[in-house]
């Protein structure tokens, strides 16, 4: 039990690094955004799991419940998810514009075109 007490953090680290890997190792801009999304979700999981209290209930007040999980991370992450989709769509819009300007969304090809002129 003691050893697995940090298991949630390890999952977060694993997800975060996988997302990070996609961002730096893949040249496709859409794929990079997917990687960023995974990175972002790992942060969500970090917050939510930090707010979990063993044996606690969802933070909706009821008469016969004594222990609740922490509502504060829920609020922060709930809004962060919606803000996240809004910012992701701005990123996607920029990808579309890059595609219109360069005819490709691969990082390498864009860099080549930039250096040749």
């Amino acid at each position, binding site marked *: 039990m003691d050893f697995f007490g940090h298991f949630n953090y390890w999952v977060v680290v694993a997800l975060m690094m996988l997302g990070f890997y996609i961002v730096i*190792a893949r040249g496709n801009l859409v794929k990079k955004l*997917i990687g960023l999304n995974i990175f972002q979700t790992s942060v969500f999981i970090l917050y939510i799991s930090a707010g979990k209290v063993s044996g606690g209930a969802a933070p909706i007040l009821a008469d016969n419940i004594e222990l609740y999980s922490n509502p*504060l991370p829920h609020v922060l992450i709930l809004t962060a998810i919606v803000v996240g989709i809004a910012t992701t769509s701005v990123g996607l819009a920029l990808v579309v514009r890059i595609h219109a300007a360069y005819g490709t969304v691969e990082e390498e090809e864009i860099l080549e075109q930039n250096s040749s002129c």
Partner: protein
Amino acid sequence: MLLVATAVALIRVRGLLASIMLTSVYGLLSASFFVTMDAVDVAFTEAAVGAGVSPLLLLLTVAIVGRKEAAPLRGRRALLPILLVTVTGALLIVGTFDMPHFGSADAPANHHVAPHYLQQSWDEIGIPNVVTSVLASYRAYDTLGEVLVIFTAGVAVILALAPPGQRGSARPARPSAEEHLGQHTILQVVSKLLIPFMLLFAFYVQFHGEYGPGGGFQAGVIFASGIILYGLLYGLPTVCRVIPPPVVEILAALGVLIYGLTGVISLLGGANYLDYSVLADDPVTAQHIGIIAIELGVGITVAAVIITIYYAFAARLLREED
């Protein structure tokens, strides 16, 4: 564990289309994870956003830019990212040993203001869902900021995707609704049955957000995904006739306006900005009024902005096809 497996699969998969499908699976999985973590409000949002709206937007983008993906790095050059990621990950893992154990009630994160919210919010605000009272009353400033970010993002998408020289909102140029009809008859019939319930459910989530999980953010996203589903199956021109883009854009601004004006009204009443206590004689009733007004503003803005973003992408797709 499943989440990690899906993320690994995401790295391996080459085609963008398959990655997007995996993103959707990933969103659904993380939503169910949030349920087990007691974060039902968050799970609601993630299910609608992660499994629904965000893969749809990715799909629209891929439809515009093409689904081919270049080969991943090979040999020497592939080593550097792997090395970097491994070292960073190992450092972070070492860092976790100082963190409080999972689920412990005495972790620092569960002290400070959180117990106050849980113990006092019933007397001060009088609604059962603590997440809603923190979101819309204690931390209403934060939420206002976030709504503004969403609104700005919507504006930015319109600006980025508008055709050169166009003024006003994005409108599809040609009425090509007939092309779409008859292509997906079964889907269209099923969705015709489903969409009214989705929209109705969105309203339930909006107005029941004080008593159960839900609220403006979730309702907005669910409403928007209903409309987007309609748009995918019946074609953009058809949705645009049902809900014209200028109306949606005005609604997005209107939501922010409702939110801001609620604050101004409490200023005029002599209280602080977004302090609802002056909205009625009884402070608890005043809190109720304030929260309903704010959640309404949030819901309208979120739904309108996401529909606007969808319109912008879909209209762009139509133009690219021409």
